[in-house]
């Protein structure tokens, strides 16, 4: 059985994490399938916006600890080694988050461009026995929210509810529990319609300006 499924809805490319019995734990197999799904999306010319979600009421609990514990010391996360792919795509990706969104799963959601969350969504790094090192979250968290909130999540293992996550800008839109996917697809369709092409989002350009000194950024924009 595949652990990632893809389907189309007009211009929207929907990617679902499909290991609901494991709360969509990101096994190495799943990660490889996910990389393939992103490559398919990137190469599908008439797909302009993607939506990433998890099946079965959880976005993802992160690493597959079973696999890590019984593995032979293979790479913990091929996805993380590739900078978490959604961020590197030229086209937009919207995360639709319900339930637990933890660890590597949280990093995956952070690497999307927008996060739409149902009210029951929960964010954080709550596994205080898993010392994998969240090298992508340390780059992305302080850009989405602020330094104090980032330190709180990484140091305390605290689980943040969706309402607070929206308040501190980790969630772009909060919807009633169970509505995240429907709303994300609707938002993605709206984006596709408004922009009229995949390129018009200028995703790489916007991300590329993050962390650039302001005078340099202004120069880059002027010369573009």
């Amino acid at each position: 059985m595949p652990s990632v499924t893809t389907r189309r809805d007009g211009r929207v490319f929907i990617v679902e994490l499909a290991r609901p019995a494991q709360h969509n734990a990101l096994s190495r197999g799943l990660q490889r399938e996910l990389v393939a799904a992103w490559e398919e999306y990137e190469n599908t010319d008439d797909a302009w916006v993607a939506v990433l979600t998890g099946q079965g009421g959880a976005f993802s609990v992160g690493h597959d600890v079973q696999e890590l514990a019984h593995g032979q010391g293979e790479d913990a996360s091929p996805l993380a080694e590739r900078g978490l792919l959604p961020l590197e795509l030229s086209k937009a990706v919207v995360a639709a988050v319900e339930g637990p969104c933890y660890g590597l799963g949280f990093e995956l959601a952070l690497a999307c461009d927008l996060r739409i969350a149902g009210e029951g969504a929960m964010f954080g790094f709550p596994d205080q026995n898993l010392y994998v090192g969240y090298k992508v979250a340390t780059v992305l968290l302080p850009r989405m929210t602020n330094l104090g909130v980032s330190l709180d999540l990484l140091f305390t293992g605290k689980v943040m509810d969706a309402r607070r996550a929206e308040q501190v800008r980790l969630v772009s839109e909060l919807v009633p529990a169970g509505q995240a996917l429907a709303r994300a697809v609707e938002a993605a369709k709206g984006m596709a319609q408004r922009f009229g092409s995949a390129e018009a989002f200028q995703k790489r350009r916007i991300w590329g300006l993050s962390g650039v000194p302001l005078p340099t950024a202004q120069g880059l924009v002027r010369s573009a």
Partner: protein
Amino acid sequence: MVVETAPAPVLLRRREGAILIATMNRPERMNALGGGLGEALNEMWLDFKDDPELRVAILTGAGERAFSAGADLRANDARARQMGAQSAQEFLDADRARGVRPSFNGNNFGLWKPVIAAINGWCLAGGCEMSMGCDLRIMEEQAQLGLPEVKRGMGAKQTTHKLYFLTTLPMGLDIDWTGDPITAQQAFDLGLVNEVVPKGQSVRRAMEIAEQICRFPNSYLQYQKLRLFQSIGVPVDYALALEQRAQPHQSGEYRAGLEASLRSRLPGT
């Protein structure tokens, strides 16, 4: 010459296991940084850094009124008059020339151990700057926080950049330019403080959080904090490339942690 006497220590240090609780103890002066308090704090942060048994520090103020009101303006004023300084800036420049460095920020000392501010009352000017130099801020509901320097013709120079990293650019400017204090609830809504607690509860709650932090190995906490700070203000692609090249976190606790992780159950699963 004004001689300040300090019958009680201006800084109280208490240890609870791996946790250091530091209490600024000049309640009659709203725990302002005079009477040797700044120097005592500097010394304490260095001791904390070098003490292998201490893992997390909590910084708070004595009494019910204040966390800290910052620089002791009365003491500074007396000294400025004695020096013949014409302006606050001249006074600060003279301090800088003498090599006096206020203890605003644990990070000044390359400190990678977590520090929690338990904000138990007024948290103003240099006091506010100190709280912003901490990693986490727990604030009591009646407390207020602000940078009133602008109202005295001064700037909160150590802090403008921290406000930007701890809130947003427009909110940083708002706080810095108006000099008006904000309530605990407003600070929480901005994400500037991590939790709001009832009056008198900030240290107790900070202790709970410190204990929770201590469940992570030291090396892991330091690794994460270093990675976080090194990525700030760096272009995102470059920061990610640096992260890919960084050594993965390696610690002796990793394997045993995995076994424990298998037995634990995460919230909502």
